[in-house]
């Protein structure tokens, strides 16, 4: 195994070449019908031959043929019992091929998604992902890999599970983390390139990168963004352009020569590792190697990287160094009877109301405090975090004192949270810093040891000692923000000590936060006191404040203070732009949704019309927000889940004929030979939320079975999913089977390997994503 230090040195001296695609090459060899991982056992020479071709082409790193080798993925082909054998053989095969080279060729164990995305993007769990990745990482490392690569990941929470799992198994193994971004630099479940950098960058990886989904031109744009968001070495593996069907399978139109023309641009943008993904073959890697002959790594300039103290949710990043951060304080049941009882009983609706309202009021992040924590379990904390992160794009501040509950929340949260907080004494730091290191995030350091020093100098000294300890553990200053401790003036505490501490921290370049409301505890005119104090703190350089964003006195004063200090107006949310029903759906406030629907029913509007023209319209607006990338997949699914019970209730109120049809009936299936069903399930959810009745025939469904179900159910539309390059042709078979069977029904199709041209060729209509599927279905039924 190469050491992490050696690997890092190699990346600094030259650009390393990764290998290219495997699936297409196996297909060329006539092995397309065999699960790729099984080839390690049944056709090891074919796998070794391809590895050798990549070595001859110039690859410095070979990836083992274990891409879908995790247990859940293998189980889809009933291969889970062979998992150990598959990994042992895969590494041995790659090692044999690598040993034929005259230079050093590294073998990296290849890992990807489990196919069961953790909630809220899917129905899986973080813990299940962790178990699957631990097992695969251990198998690969024990079999003798030089390093590991986790690639083609679309969900940041699943990536987090994978990275944590690997580091639980080994802190020595070199580790590359890659996500699949589309042309806008966003993953399927909404993580931007910058979110990826913020979250994965904390998790002890050696290289951050991207692969799949797009060709070299789009990858280059995304790479340039990533280079500005991390100082870690970078890797890229683009597809060979856009997919096209050639009559037998999907092919990619970017030639090896054209592909290789991006090599120098990748290096100039900062890539240290370059390879190819779908559609690339050994000749692509050979052309890349030739194009990079004599090209030295560009060397990244620190000034090009914007690294402030950033907090992030699944979909957005907030830079505390560049903008003042309002942290909403109201997810805290202390003194709030209704919120307390609902949170303790697992009824998250009132909490989500507060989440939504604070977002509307202008909060940039939300403090999450469970009050008396003994009433909560790890499971209920998980549920709460999943509910909140599905309902808001705002980053969270986890104000949780129990270490077990905090660890659970950190595992469950897919962003880079604030961890609120740790005192600077040894005991507190010993408990909290390992969590920060393992799960990532930004720690709020309370400027105190076991006791609170009275003087600013005493508080600042405590912070400096804590930072020194953290830095010795390999953590960096940008992982911390200092709470200068606002304490009740009513209890005789001197607010000037707080301001003095703030000043010392600001002069030392540290970001700061205050729980402002503490200052006025027990006092009359709290808003005025809080606002006056906040104004003074802002002038000194306060970076963030935990406040009541619904307190107009405080908020207006804050905006005024920021205007005077910075000369720029803060962006304010235009509340009038929000449709209340849309907003309630996105926030998961089912009671509000019901109330708004009831209003329409009370006015005499028939249930069918309410279903289609009120709730259906609102879901359509949610879909439009998704399409414009203002919200992302987990949000649309969350809104759909909120809408389902209301749709069901409305359906129950309709006349028989109306109720059975809704907008129309859609029969969905993943075609034969294809076991990918995440996309199909998402489409089913969105169609249901859009008022369609959906019959799901499942995955790996034969043409004959689809025909049988279509004849029996008489759907208005048949929807087909084909993910793999080798299965897209099945769509054509289904269309033909339906025609021959006398079932006249429009067919729509989608999937990673599908496109408009291809769908037309097959006699079907193409839907790029779930929202496009909904629009297409509506147009087909005339709705």
């Amino acid at each position, binding site marked *: 195994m190469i050491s992490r230090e050696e690997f890092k040195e190699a990346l600094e001296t030259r650009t390393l070449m990764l290998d290219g695609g495997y699936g297409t090459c196996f297909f060329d060899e006539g092995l397309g019908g065999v699960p790729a991982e099984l080839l390690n056992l049944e056709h090891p020479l074919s796998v070794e031959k391809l590895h050798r071709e990549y070595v001859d082409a110039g690859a410095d790193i070979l990836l083992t043929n274990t891409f879908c080798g995790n247990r859940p993925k293998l189980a889809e082909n009933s291969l889970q019992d062979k998992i150990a054998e598959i990994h042992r053989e895969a590494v041995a095969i790659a090692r044999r091929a690598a040993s034929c080279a005259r230079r050093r060729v590294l073998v990296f164990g290849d890992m990807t998604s489990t196919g069961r995305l953790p909630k809220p993007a899917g129905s899986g769990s973080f813990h299940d992902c962790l178990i699957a990745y631990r097992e695969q990482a251990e198998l690969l490392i024990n079999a003798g890999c030089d390093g590991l690569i986790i690639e083609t990941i679309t969900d940041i929470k699943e990536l987090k599970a994978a990275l944590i799992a690997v580091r639980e198994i080994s802190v020595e193994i070199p580790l590359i983390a890659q996500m699949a971004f589309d042309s806008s630099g966003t993953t399927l479940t909404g993580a931007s390139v910058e979110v990826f950098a913020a979250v994965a960058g904390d998790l002890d990886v050696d290289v951050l990168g991207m692969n799949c989904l797009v060709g070299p031109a789009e990858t280059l744009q995304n790479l*340039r963004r990533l280079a500005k968001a991390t100082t870690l070495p970078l890797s890229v593996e683009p597809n060979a352009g856009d997919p096209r069907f050639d009559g037998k399978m999907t092919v990619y139109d970017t*030639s090896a*020569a*054209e592909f*290789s*023309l991006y*090599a*120098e*641009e990748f290096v*100039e*943008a900062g890539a240290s590792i370059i390879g190819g993904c779908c559609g690339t073959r050994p000749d692509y890697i050979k*052309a890349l190697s*030739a*194009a990079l*002959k*004599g*090209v030295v790594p560009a060397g990244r300039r620190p000034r090009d990287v914007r690294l402030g103290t950033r907090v992030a949710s699944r979909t957005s990043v907030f830079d505390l160094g560049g903008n003042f951060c309002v942290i909403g304080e109201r997810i805290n049941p202390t003194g709030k009877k209704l919120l307390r009882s609902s949170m303790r009983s697992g009824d998250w609706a009132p909490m989500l109301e507060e989440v939504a309202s604070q977002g509307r009021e202008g909060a940039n992040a939300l403090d999450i405090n469970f009050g008396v924590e003994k009433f909560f379990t790890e499971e209920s904390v998980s549920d709460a975090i999943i509910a909140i992160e599905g309902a808001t794009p705002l980053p969270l501040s986890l104000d949780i004192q129990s270490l077990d509950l905090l660890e659970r929340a950190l595992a469950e949260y897919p962003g880079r949270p604030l961890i609120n907080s740790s005192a600077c004494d040894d005991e507190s730091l010993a408990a909290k810093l390992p969590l920060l290191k393992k799960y990532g995030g930004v720690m709020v350091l309370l400027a105190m040891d076991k006791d609170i020093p009275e003087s600013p100098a005493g508080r600042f000294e405590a912070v400096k000692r804590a930072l020194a300890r953290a830095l010795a553990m390999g953590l960096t200053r940008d992982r911390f923000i200092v709470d200068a401790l606002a304490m009740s003036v009513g209890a005789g505490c001197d607010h000037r000590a707080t301001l003095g501490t703030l000043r010392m921290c600001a002069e030392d370049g540290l970001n700061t936060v205050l729980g402002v409301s503490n200052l006025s505890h027990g006092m009359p005119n709290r808003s005025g006191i809080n606002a006056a104090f906040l104004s003074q703190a802002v002038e000194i350089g306060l970076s963030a404040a935990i406040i009541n964003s619904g307190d107009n006195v405080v908020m207006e004063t804050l905006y005024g203070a920021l205007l005077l200090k910075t000369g720029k107006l803060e962006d304010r949310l235009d509340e009038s732009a929000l449709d209340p029903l849309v907003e309630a759906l996105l926030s998961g406030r089912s009671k509000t949704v019901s109330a708004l629907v009831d209003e329409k029913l009370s006015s005499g509007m028939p249930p069918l019309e309410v279903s289609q023209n009120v709730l259906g319209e609102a879901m359509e607006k949610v879909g439009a927000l998704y399409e414009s990338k203002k919200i992302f997949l987990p949000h649309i699914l969350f809104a759909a889940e909120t809408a389902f019970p209301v749709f069901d209730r409305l359906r129950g109120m309709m006349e028989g004929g109306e109720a059975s049809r809704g907008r129309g009936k859609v029969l969905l299936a993943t075609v034969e030979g294809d076991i990918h069903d995440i996309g199909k399930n998402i489409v089913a959810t969105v169609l249901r939320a859009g008022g369609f009745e959906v019959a799901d025939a499942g995955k790996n469904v034969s043409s004959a079975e689809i025909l049988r179900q279509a004849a029996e159910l008489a759907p208005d539309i048949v929807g087909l999913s084909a993910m793999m390059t080798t299965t897209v042709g099945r769509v054509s078979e289904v269309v033909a089977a339906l025609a021959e069977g006398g079932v006249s029904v429009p067919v729509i199709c989608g999937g990673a390997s599908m496109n408009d041209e291809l769908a037309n060729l097959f006699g079907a209509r193409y839907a790029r994503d779930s929202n496009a599927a909904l629009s297409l279905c509506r147009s087909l039924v005339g709705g």
Partner: protein
Amino acid sequence: MPRLKAYLARSGYRSALKDMKDGELALAKEIYIEALDLAEPLAVVNDYERRELGDISLPGKLEGCASYSAMLFSLGAGLDLAAEAYFGRDEPLRALLLDSWGSEAVECLAENVDERLRAARGRGTTRFAPGYGGFSVRHNAEWLKLAVGEDKPERPVSVDSQTGIIIPRKSIICMIGWDTIED
């Protein structure tokens, strides 16, 4: 294949790739791909003992070697014709890019063969072409004969005896001197 940056530098682009306008870079890449289709790379190497060269002129720096390789590299006529066509259609930038690519690519071809020869034979002299270092470009004609062989009347390139210019233009005639030949 020539490096993208080297080809662009030869065309006159000196900035970092990221600072080029998207349209410019896209055009440059388009021409690169077109050029790859048009080029018909040819490399011919013929070896001679010193005594076999008789009174053939040698550049000063290559005197005294035991043996010599006479070499011809060419990309064929397609590039010249396409560049002319671009000029004729008032598309001078495309013509310039094609011409620059050809210059860089033929040099790249020569460099490639040069490296392989040295890898097989050890250290030789600098690769030298007529027209440089006071060695007249008119010597192209006689070294062309040496490169392709006196007995081959049909030559893939021609040299104007008066000017020494080689047609097709993206061609190089050159030589390397070797102390010893290790076959």
